[in-house]
């Protein structure tokens, strides 16, 4: 019998199949359970809650947040951070409105806005990865610049954008009036795309590797900077798409309406199990976190809970969610 096997083989106690439901999935499962409990509670408390229409409308309302969070998740996993994403959403609507007013076709205008978002993302990527500047400050800076720029462009005024075909992106439904809202579909498509990229492609592996251990990644020839820059671009694109959807939904582009949702976007990503320090996370966790936050909003409003108590409740639920997850981790460890 060779000594080799003896020395490295684990003792039986250490070899339990405990990581079958590996970390990542167990966290997502926990969030799913939490979401279902929330749904159950609201179903009991409000007769208006559990209807297909209501559940769909939650998804539709959260779509723009979900889009920004979908792109933010891989970016944070890869070790980046984009605080400007919500400001990009703001300027994107403004760009659509300006182009349209200037006589450009509305779809071309959307394309311009989305390309502009990608360009801003590329700028963020170049500053953080090309020049090696701190992403927090860089994207805070671009956030401020972009917010200012949208205000300058519009003079602070909301731009009307009532164009039936265009508004369909924001408020249309597929399959009749009780059908599936278009924004929800767009969001889900983006989530599947992000999941596919992250779970199945080499680029996806680079995302996790770059954030998990950037030094080791560089040493192995993984294009860390290119990976991050591409993800900044993706974040810019997603932000712009979110802005287009909000503008289509509201029939108007407000320069600063999405900006205040930045913290919700980041909160969803972190609550979804992504580590702010990179290397770990999944888009499904983020999606569930987005749904949890949206469901809370909806359920509490349906129960006619005052918005003050909603703040209290939301905070408590955040603590509960993260507390339960910790319980899971402990019982597993």
């Amino acid at each position, binding site marked *: 019998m060779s000594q080799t096997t003896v020395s490295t083989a684990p003792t039986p106690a250490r070899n339990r199949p405990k990581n079958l439901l590996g970390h990542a999935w167990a966290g997502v499962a926990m969030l799913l359970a939490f979401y279902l409990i929330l749904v159950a509670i609201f179903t009991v408390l409000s007769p208006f809650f559990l209807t297909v229409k209501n559940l769909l*409308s939650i998804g539709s*309302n959260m779509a723009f947040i979900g889009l920004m969070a979908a792109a933010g998740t891989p970016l944070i996993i890869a070790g980046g951070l984009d605080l400007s994403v919500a400001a990009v959403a703001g300027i994107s609507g403004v760009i659509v409105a300006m182009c349209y007013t200037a006589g450009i076709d509305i779809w071309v205008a959307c394309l311009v806005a989305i390309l502009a978002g990608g360009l801003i993302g590329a700028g963020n990527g170049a500053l953080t990865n090309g020049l090696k500047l701190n992403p927090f400050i860089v994207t805070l800076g671009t956030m401020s610049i972009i917010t200012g720029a949208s205000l300058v462009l519009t003079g602070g005024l909301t731009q009307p954008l009532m164009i039936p075909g265009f508004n369909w992106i924001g*408020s249309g439904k597929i399959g009749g009036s009780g059908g599936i809202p278009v924004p929800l579909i767009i969001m889900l498509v983006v989530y599947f795309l992000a999941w596919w990229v992250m779970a199945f492609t080499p680029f996806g592996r680079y995302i996790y590797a770059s954030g998990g251990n950037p030094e080791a990644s560089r040493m192995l020839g993984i294009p860390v900077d290119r990976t991050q820059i591409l993800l900044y671009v993706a974040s810019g694109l997603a932000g712009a798409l979110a802005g287009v959807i909000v503008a289509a939904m*509201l029939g108007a582009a407000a320069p600063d*309406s999405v900006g205040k949702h930045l913290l919700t976007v980041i909160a969803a990503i972190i609550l979804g199990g992504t580590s702010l320090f990179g290397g770990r996370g999944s888009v499904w966790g983020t999606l569930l976190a987005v749904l949890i936050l949206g469901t809370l*909003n909806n359920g509490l*409003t349906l129960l006619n809970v005052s918005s003050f108590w909603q703040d209290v409740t939301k905070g408590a639920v955040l603590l509960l969610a993260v507390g339960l997850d910790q319980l899971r981790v402990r019982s597993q460890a």
Partner: protein
Amino acid sequence: DFHGFDSANYDGKRLSAEQYAAMVKDATAVKPPRNGKKYVIGFANLQRDITFGVVVEKSIQANADLAGVDLLVADNRLDGPTALANAQSFVQRQVDYVIEFQTDSNFGQTVMNVFNDDGVKVVAIDIPMPGSTFFGANNPKSGYMSGSYLGQAAIAKFGKDKAMQGYFVVGELPQSGSIPKMRTEGQVNGFLSALPEFDKTKMLRIDTKNTQQESFAQMTNVLGRIPDGVPIMITAINDQSAIGMLRAVQQAGRQADVVVVGNGADETKALSEEPDLVAATGYFPENYGNYLIPIALSSLAGKTLPPAVLVNHVMINKANLCQYYADYKCAEKADFEYTFPQEAFSAYLTELRKEDFLKGFEDLVPAK
């Protein structure tokens, strides 16, 4: 009457350049500009990226240009500490007069202290500040107007019985203190003046957080508990929120059941084009400067001013829109004949003065 400006009975029309020139001349004789050349007036805006603030600012700027005075614009960003810092900056810049539009009457004293220390006179917009001239909205009344209009419009559209079965949704701004609260309470009570027996459980309040997007989202949420086919009666803290709520109803495909009244009448395009946005209480922010610059110059000229100059609110609907905003056409005739319930309003004012949330500043409540 000071070169065409009579502070007690002023119609809000813009003065001419000649009248302004005469005013400036008189004022200069009494109190010459501090920089020796030209008056500098500071204007601290409430927030520069809400429509109302933008329109007010444009109006003040236009009048300042006409009068040949310099205007410094600062942004209070709906924030107390920022307002205080801006006040200090104005003093530092040695302005001759200040137009202050800030967020909370409770900060009024502190902000005024800064100006008083420097001997600068102030006119305050919409939020009273001790020792300053007050100019602006009559919030309880404007709210009461939109609420009562909504109630009457709903009766006209659906009939009283059906309207009583409907839901009343008001978009409020609860974090922002007593001024918006006076407006919202006015709306609720105005609505009740038209439909006094309305079921309280069918009155829903949503927090608009002052954005169209949030109004939209919260309205979407609340629609889940409003049964299909019953009237949905909407009013809100401002036009933007009302429109956001309307969009949510439209998205749900329930526009047949909705009637909306705005507050502000600054979204004139929507008022003209959206069939279900039936009216809005007019504030005429585009005329604010017509009052404010003459007030400033009168004050600099040593004229005495009444403690408060109030905007005369008017309900603007599709039938009279063209009278106030010439860019738009008027509808043939009004959907119904609106009457302001003056008696009920006076009774409400008496009640309002006893309200807890106004303790300490009951003088905010207008006489009529």
